[in-house]
């Protein structure tokens, strides 16, 4: 493995790390089976879903359980997002005003799904060395570029130097308050790639709330069914 010396903090290295984080669960194409557990003080639910991606811009998610939510699908192309609800046979486009709303009741927002691959394009990074820094990790502080529209005034990323795999992202609002923490753990082999199987999002302001996403299966660069990233496919009953 090629280790970067601790003093090397050139911008290219940061770009490399951000790109790696953006591409963590993606490739030319990907297919994954995922379990998402949402915990709140009032209820706990586990959703299972299938997710397809193509490049950096296209995502298609189909909820497979529980029964109530089965058949709900989400399509994202670039910055636009649609949901389909089979119970009512309706497609709903997510308007900009709802982007910060929760996706499927979880602690991930619609915006997260749309912007999940945008760290490299939308943010400027610089290396930092906090007092508790461990030598095996990069500590990168991200601030939005001038033209970026986002609610996060700062994102801190901690990633393995050796593999660029993130272990934590902390999101800050414009007042410098940490609003949520995303932890990555349980690195496993998925189709030849080493990826954290578990992502856990914990909002800081809501005690008792957290969402744990667990990758059960992931395949990369297979041929996907045709026309999968389309509104028509959104509404197809399965």
């Amino acid at each position, binding site marked *: 493995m090629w280790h970067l010396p601790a003093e090397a903090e050139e911008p290219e290295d940061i770009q490399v790390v951000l790109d790696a984080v953006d591409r963590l669960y993606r490739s030319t194409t990907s297919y994954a089976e995922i379990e998402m557990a949402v915990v709140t003080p*009032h*209820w706990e*639910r586990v959703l299972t879903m299938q997710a397809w991606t193509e490049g950096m811009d296209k995502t298609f998610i189909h909820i497979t359980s*529980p029964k109530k939510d089965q058949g*709900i699908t989400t399509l994202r192309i670039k910055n636009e997002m649609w949901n389909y609800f089979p119970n009512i046979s309706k497609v*709903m486009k997510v308007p900009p005003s709802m982007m910060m709303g929760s996706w499927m009741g979880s602690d991930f927002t619609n915006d997260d799904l749309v912007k999940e691959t945008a760290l490299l394009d939308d943010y400027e990074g610089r290396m930092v060395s906090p007092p508790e820094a461990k030598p095996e990790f990069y500590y990168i502080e991200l601030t939005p570029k001038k033209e970026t529209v986002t609610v996060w005034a700062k994102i801190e990323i901690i990633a393995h130097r050796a593999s660029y795999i993130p272990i934590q992202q902390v999101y800050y609002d414009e007042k410098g308050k940490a609003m949520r923490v995303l932890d990555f753990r349980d690195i496993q082999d998925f189709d030849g790639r080493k990826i954290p199987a578990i992502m856990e999002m914990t909002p800081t302001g809501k005690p008792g709330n957290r969402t744990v996403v667990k990758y059960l299966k992931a395949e990369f660069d297979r041929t996907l069914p045709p026309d999968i990233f389309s509104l028509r496919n959104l509404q197809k009953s399965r």
Partner: protein
Amino acid sequence: MLIPKMAFRNVFRQRRRSLLTGLTLTLGFVFFSVSLGLFDGTYGRIIDIFTKDHTGHIQIHRAGYLDRPSLYKTISEGEDLERKLSTIPEVEALAPRVYSPVLAFSGTKTTGAQMIGVDPDQEPKTSRLATKVSQGRFFSQDSDDEIIMGSGLAEVLQLRLGDEVSLITQAADGSIANDNFRIIGITDRTSSTLERMKCYLPITTAQAFLVLGGRIHEIAILLHRQKDAQRIAAGMVDVLRDSSLEAAPWQIVEKPFYDAMQADYKGSYITLVIIMLIVAIGVLNTVLMAILERTREFGVLRALGTRPGTVFFLILYEVVFLSAISIAIAIPVSLSANSYLSVHGIPTPAIEWGGMVFDVAIAEVTFKSIWLPTAVTFFTAVFVSIFPAIRAARVTPVTAMRFH
């Protein structure tokens, strides 16, 4: 006993003078009393109209709901509670409600809205919602897919009566609530902007949609008299505390409105003080003239040996008697005037305020509209008489008798 008797006789002896002074006192009293009646009546009416719009006079919630509403802060066994509450004699009607933010969408348009679940039977008795439906109709019975939309919401989504609209939100069990509804009614356009972005479902439909079971968020209570609200709400505290519920009178639920009304009401005190001053000046004028005109008479009295103090009290007693008689006449006149105006009112130019239209000023018959003018008229009359009475008492007989 001589002085009061003389004073009493004097009042009737000088018929024209007494009549003039008495008329000033009576008219001043009536004017002031009707002003009070109209003020209280207008405020009372504004409060009535406002509270009957949606809020009601008392609202019951789970403790903490008013400060921070939440889908999960619910009242269980609302029906039991409703039954108990209906036994309170001051209660006129009550209505259970359910609230949730929702996404409403149709075609390509999506917007946020507030959904309120209302009882088709109880709601029309408790608030004016049913009368605000200007197109279509109110809920006739619990129909699964009927929805009433605010006019603003219908406009944003470009929907009309009979169209279908979809609602999405997070249910109380965490699942995604989604359903289609048929628009059977649209509320009118005179409500406030906030009001017009609301939509209504029959409460049982809303409960099923939100997976609430039988739980509700609010019981709105209408009393026969809005004035009882604070007292009755305070009386409920002990009973409700056991179930961690709280009762809030409208003064708390609609605190900004109440504060604004209070400020306005206090501002009207200035107007009332001005009216009082006008009445006082009228009384001063006539009483002063009455006393000055009798300077010669008082001079004769003094020349005959009457002590100044006696003259002073003579004048004062006259004023006391005259006031008492004038007030005694004025009271029934004011009462009938206020009574009449409490039913018919005075037409005014129409004002629109908070989504409601006011085009008539109504009076209210209150105890205050009697005792306050009585106190003011009486004490003003006596007070303004003191100085002229002192002067009259100390006049030198020779100068006085030469006066004309």
